[in-house]
């Protein structure tokens, strides 16, 4: 790879201070460090450093999203063709057809996500003269996975500009934000364009153009008093627990398959990026709440019990959003509290407010409270230390 290295070394002076393209140094640096790790060496302190840096960590997170991404592609095609078959417009379809259709629908969303988001990052990086930090690498992949497939691309673009600027850049960029930027994008879409983010016409590709189609999500149907079923014309397909686990249900692109999300979770936990404490306590919180509701059992949403954790954004939110190390709590004790509250409140809001996508908003809410939770955890340690002094003084006085 010497020729590539030589090429970078050749043009580098132009981008250095005093060079004619000085302003574009962040862009150059991003491209250079994509191909080559920098030659920075330690100067003092620990002369050796671990091989993991933020770039490498973010790569792992994106890789962990791939199972959900690939399943999402297939799922888009699956429901699209299922409705056509049910309506008699098509006889059959192959796995590959479904997958390629999904790819065709998903690719523009991914491209818009990265193009708009990175564009905003580049502008801020050039303006402030800092490098382009890798945070958006992950955010850019998260966003396509948490939106409905038929969302117009321009809405997505507007939401991303809002999400990246308000959710991240105004706080100072990667590592400084309080809220998870991908969730800010999602929340913006939810409130700005509600008809495109809920209802029974947005979850299946092309459903809005088909008569007699109900592609509502399981939660949507349960909320309106029905059962977990797909209704196309007169055909009523009831979803099994297996469907929910594998992910053959309507929903946001990457959120449907619990098993794909679990594979990602294993990758995140093995690489140490995500906190197992948050995931575990989130599951505990969700289980407790859904169990309590099942005891109550006043409506179909309450009766749904532990299956709540297989549908909607619960698993995806818990694994990929709640564990975002920047916006989550930072202390280990705090992580237990934070995860538990996310699980507990998500199911609570889902059931009592009939708010299907409560998970995302609960995580945003807890993002806001994360520093407060941490504050009290850290204060406990401070108090322990101060008490040591007080005890000593008391002992001395009584002696």
């Amino acid at each position, binding site marked *: 790879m010497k020729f590539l290295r030589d090429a970078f070394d050749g043009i580098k002076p132009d981008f250095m201070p005093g060079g004619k393209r000085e302003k574009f140094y962040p862009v150059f640096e991003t491209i250079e460090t994509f191909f080559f790790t920098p030659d*920075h060496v330690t100067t003092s302190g620990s002369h050796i450093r671990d091989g993991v840096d933020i770039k490498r960590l973010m790569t792992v997170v994106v890789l962990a999203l791939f199972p959900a991404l690939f399943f999402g592609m297939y799922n888009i095609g699956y429901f699209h063709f299922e409705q056509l078959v049910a309506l008699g417009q098509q006889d059959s379809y192959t796995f590959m057809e479904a997958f390629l259709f999904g790819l065709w629908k998903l690719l523009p969303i991914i491209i818009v996500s990265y193009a708009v988001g990175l564009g905003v990052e580049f502008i801020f990086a050039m303006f402030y003269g800092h490098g382009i930090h890798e945070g958006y690498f992950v955010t850019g992949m998260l966003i396509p996975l948490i939106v409905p497939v038929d969302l117009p691309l321009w809405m997505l673009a507007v939401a991303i500009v809002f999400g990246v600027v308000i959710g991240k850049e105004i706080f100072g960029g990667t590592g400084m934000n309080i809220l998870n930027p991908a969730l800010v994008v999602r929340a913006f879409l939810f409130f700005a364009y509600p008809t495109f983010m809920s209802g029974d016409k947005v979850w299946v590709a092309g459903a809005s153009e088909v008569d007699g189609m109900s592609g509502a999500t399981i939660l949507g149907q349960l909320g309106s008093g029905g059962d977990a079923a797909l209704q196309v014309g007169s055909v009523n397909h009831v979803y099994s627990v297996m469907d929910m686990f594998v992910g053959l249900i309507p929903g946001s692109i990457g959120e449907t398959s619990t098993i794909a999300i679990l594979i990602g979770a294993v990758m995140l936990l093995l690489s140490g990026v995500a906190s197992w404490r948050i995931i575990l306590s989130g599951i505990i919180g969700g289980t407790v709440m859904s169990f309590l509701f099942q005891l109550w059992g006043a409506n179909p949403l309450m009766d749904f019990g532990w299956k709540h954790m297989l549908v909607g954004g619960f698993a995806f939110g818990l694994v990929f959003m709640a564990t975002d190390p920047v916006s989550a709590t930072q202390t280990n004790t705090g992580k237990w509290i934070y995860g538990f509250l996310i699980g507990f409140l998500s199911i609570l809001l889902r059931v009592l407010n009939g708010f299907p996508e409560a998970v995302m908003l609960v995580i945003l809410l807890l993002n806001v409270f994360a520093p407060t939770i941490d504050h009290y955890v850290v204060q406990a340690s401070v108090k322990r230390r101060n008490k040591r002094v007080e005890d000593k003084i008391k002992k001395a006085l009584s002696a």
Partner: protein
Amino acid sequence: MSQDIRIKRGVDIKLKGKAEKMFANVPQAKVFALRPDDFHGVTPKLTVKVGAQVKAGDSLFYSKYDDRIKFTSPVSGEVVEIVRGAKRKILEVKVLVDSEVTYKEFQIKESSKEDVTEILLESGAWVFIKQRPYDVIANPSDKPKAIFISGYNSAPLAADYDFALQGKEKSLQKGIDVISKLTTGKVNLSVDGSQSSSVFQNISGVELHNVTGPHPAGNVGVQIHHIDPVNKGERVWTVTPQDLVIIGDLFLTGKFNAERVVALTGSEVSQPRYVKTIAGTSIENILKDNLKSTNVRVISGGPLTGTKISQDGYLGYYDNQITVLPEGKTHRFFGWVPWLYNNIFSMAGSSFASTGKEYAMDTNKNGETRGFVVTGEMEKVFPFDIYPMYLVKSIMYNDIGEMENQGIYEVAPEDFALAEVINTSKIDIQKIVREGLDVMIKEVG
């Protein structure tokens, strides 16, 4: 009476190039140097000029803010050069050694704290006594509540005290007897609980603690935290065993003999061994014909806390280890791809500590500096009841009250060495902690 301490958090980094337990035959260096920078926070005032003749134990400079604290020559000879840097800052005071070292004779008195303090100050051995908080040379006027000695070093490639101090038991015991006069509290000695020690087994006059666990279990700061933590306004003093030997020798013979057993370690050393030498020695002879390549980083001290020096530089005054690592100033193609290059701590987690495989690590930072992103990683290797990230952040935004609350009195930069190694954001944490301590010295004292 002994007390057991078990440290759970931390990691033993296994590096290639551990010193073989035998002495290499190295000719004595011709030049020795004292570097004021080895003594943190000291502003030197010279007592000698170029051309002066000194004996071992004669003062070369003293501390501007406390003229009782003297820094004495480890050898006898002629002051040949005083190297100055920017703003005429003194960098090195070099002494060309006589063919035979002659010693200044000290009249030994050891009946009281004042006697002992006076001899230690006069001979220059006082500088071996450091204080917590702040990890600086102790103030002779202070009354420490206890003295701590860590009888083992758990850092990677560290010199093995059992080998290095063999035959010095008498001096060690004398050293302990002497320094116990300096406190009304206890003298605490911690030893490695996982193996029996030959040097420390018959030591008396101390409170013995068996410490087990991965690095930084051997750090004296960790031990203090678990035995008798430092509260605001309190002082404890620390001395290392190899320095106790010098103190003991001083009181046995009346001579300041700064002899050191140095471990020559690291993957770039052809024959990693031990060397008998004197503090401040030129390391040229030690490294001569013993390096595998030229593109190396020479460190006086260990790979986690040592100081970068040149190949013809001088051994740090407190150091008993020289480490030579490959210099890592290279670009790696797609170096950020996971699992492609060695990423031995975070990714592999604790399995790294248990495999027993030794690694040759270079000095590349393996990434660019970033804001804090990953949380909880420092806690894995930081065995204090302190939130390391909160402490580091409070230093970064320079909030004295907050630093105090977060526990700055209990830590030294070396306690953060592992956190710095595994830190994903590539922040120089030890440097930040040192700056924080310096702010506290200035503001709180």
